[in-house]
């Protein structure tokens, strides 16, 4: 989830990923939550959401 604080700054909460192994002994479950800030120095692409 990303919250625009200003034109070029956003606060980000990364909701944890869920990891599940289809085969093998890989660990399963939710990963860690991440909190962060992003500041955009360049031109912002119209409608850019994920990158």
């Amino acid at each position, binding site marked *: 989830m990303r*919250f625009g*604080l200003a034109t070029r700054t956003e606060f980000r909460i990364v909701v944890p990923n869920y990891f599940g192994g289809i085969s093998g002994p890989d660990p*399963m479950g939710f990963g*860690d939550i991440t909190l962060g800030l*992003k500041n955009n*120095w360049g031109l912002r692409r119209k409608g850019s959401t994920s990158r």
Partner: protein
Amino acid sequence: MILAISLPTGASGVSSHGYDPFIKLPWSKELKGGWSIGGMQSLFSNTDVRNRNAVWEPTFYIEREITKQWQAFAEYAGDFPQRGGPKEIVHFGTAYRLTAGQQVDFHFGLGVSRSAPSHFFAIGYSLRIDRIWGR
């Protein structure tokens, strides 16, 4: 630039069990015909058995806008830790923008180094809420 910290909230087999800060420097460039390229240089300070293990992660992608809402991409990503073997993957995916602030994506990938998973797939959802102040 992204400055963030990961909190030890995950499942025991998945969480790092530590507070892990990182910095990311993403870039992108639009090309002609709906193509674009980009990537990210990231540096993580991960918890590794109660020690710190720095990980450098370069990524590079090429993306094609199929329609205004629909994109497809191919990406390389590598994790190069201070201790331990490198994990390198290539993955391919598609993203569909539901609204100006919502997107779903699907991707699958292959490991190209010994420490990486042999294959994986993922589904994602991203939500952006703009101008929470000054509406």
